C-alpha cells in the first residue's frame, strides 16, 4: 500500500460521492419540476403530462447499466465530446429525476384537494399555496422514500465504473490488477461504500420516525 494507492482510493471515494451528490441534487430539482407539471390539470398541458408519464415509466423500468450505455453511445454518435464522468452524471440525474418525480408526485397527491381550495379562498397564489400549505404537509410523506431511494442511488453509482469513470469500484479494480489480494481490496471497497451509505440510511430512519405519518389501520 503506497501513497499513490491511498490517493487512488481517496479520489475514487470522492468521485463516487460527487457523482451521487450531483445526480441526486439534479434529480431532486428536475423531479420536483416534473412532479409539479404532472400535477397540473389543464387540457393544454396534457401532452406534457403524457410525455412525463412515459419518461417516469421508462426510466424506472430500464436497468441503470443499459441507460448508461445508451447515453454513452448516443453522445458518442452525436459527436458530443462528453467525458465519461459527464455521461454518468447525466444518466444518474435522469434516473434520479424519474424516481423522485414519482415519489414527490405521490407526496403532493397525499395532500387533500380541499387544501388547495382553502388556500385559494384565502387568496394564496399558486407558489404561496405550494410553499406554505402543500409542501409542509407533503414533506413527511416525501422524505422517507426519498432517503430510501438515495441510499440505493449511492450504490447504483458503482455501475458508472463500467463506462470507465474512475470511481470507487474502478479504483478497487485497478488495485486488484496491481496484484493486491482481491478479497482485501473488495472488502475495503465494500466498507468504504458502507461508510457512505450507512449514515444516510440512519438519518433516513431518524427522519422517518420523527415525521411518522399517523397510519389508520
Amino acid at each position: 500500500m503506497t501513497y499513490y494507492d491511498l490517493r487512488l482510493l481517496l479520489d475514487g471515494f470522492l468521485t463516487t460521492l460527487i457523482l451521487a451528490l450531483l445526480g441526486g441534487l439534479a434529480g431532486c430539482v428536475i423531479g420536483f419540476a416534473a412532479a409539479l407539471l404532472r400535477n397540473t390539470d389543464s387540457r393544454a398541458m396534457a401532452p406534457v403530462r403524457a410525455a412525463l408519464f412515459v419518461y417516469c415509466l421508462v426510466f424506472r423500468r430500464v436497468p441503470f447499466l443499459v441507460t448508461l450505455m445508451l447515453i454513452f453511445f448516443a453522445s458518442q454518435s452525436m459527436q458530443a465530446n462528453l467525458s465519461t464522468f459527464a455521461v454518468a452524471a447525466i444518466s444518474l440525474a435522469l434516473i434520479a429525476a424519474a424516481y423522485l418525480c414519482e415519489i414527490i408526485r405521490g407526496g403532493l397527491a397525499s395532500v387533500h384537494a380541499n387544501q388547495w381550495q382553502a388556500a385559494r379562498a384565502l387568496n394564496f397564489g399558486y407558489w404561496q399555496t405550494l410553499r406554505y400549505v402543500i409542501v409542509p404537509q407533503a414533506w413527511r410523506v416525501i422524505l422517507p422514500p426519498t432517503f430510501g431511494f438515495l441510499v440505493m442511488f449511492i450504490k447504483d453509482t458503482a455501475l458508472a465504473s463500467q463506462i470507465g469513470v474512475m470511481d470507487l469500484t474502478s479504483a478497487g479494480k485497478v488495485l486488484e490488477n496491481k496484484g493486491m489480494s482481491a478479497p482485501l481490496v473488495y472488502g475495503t471497497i465494500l466498507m468504504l461504500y458502507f461508510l457512505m451509505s450507512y449514515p444516510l440510511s440512519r438519518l433516513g430512519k431518524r427522519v422517518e420516525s420523527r415525521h411518522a405519518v399517523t397510519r389508520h389501520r
Partner: protein
Amino acid sequence: MTLQFGPILEQWPYLLGGAWLSLQIAVLAFACGMLIGMVCASILHQGPRLLRRPVAAYITFATNTPQLVQIFFLFFGLPTMGIILSPFAAVLLGATFNAGAYLSEILRAGFASVRRTELEAAQVLGFSRAQSLRYVVIPHVIKTMLPPLSNQFIVMTLGTSMASIFGVEELTGRTENLAAQTYLSVEAFGVAAVMYVALTLLATGVLALCARSGNRTR
C-alpha cells in the same frame, strides 16, 4: 445520425433468449431470497434474541453496499480462498444475498402489520392455528406486502443486467454482443431498453393478477 433498427430487430429471438435468462436469474434469486427473508424475518419478529443481532447486521451490511461490488468480491475474491464460482453462480449468489436482506425487511414489516387483536379474534371464533394463518393472517399480509414485493422483484429484474459484466449472456450481455457485431450500439441498447420495459410491465401485471386471485378468499 441515422438509426438503423433492421439488423438488430432481425436478431430478435437471440435477444428474447437473453431476456428469458434474465427472468430466470431474477426468479431464482427472488425465490432463494424469499427463503432467507422468511427465516431472517421470523428471527427478527420473535426469534431468539441471540440471533437477532447477526441477522440485523447482515441486513444492514447487505442493504448498504453495492450489489456489483458484492459480486466482485464473490467472483474475484473467493477464488484466492479456494472457492471458485462460475459467473452465473457468483451473480446468482450475489443477487440472492442482496435480495434476502431487502425481502426480510419487507416480510418483517408485513408480519408487524398483523395486529394481535386480529389473531385473538380468530381464536375466539374457534379458528385453529393453521386456519387463522390461512384465512386471517395470509390474506392480510399478502395485501399489505404485495406492492413492496412486486417492486423488489422489478428492482431485481433490472439488477440482473449486472450479470453481463461477469460474462453471463443475459439480455444486456447479448445486447453488448450484438452491438459489437453490428456496430449499431445505440439501436441495440434502445431495443434492449424497450425489452426491459416490456419484461417488467409483464412481471407487474402477473404479480397483480396473483394478488387478485389471492385476495378472493376474503
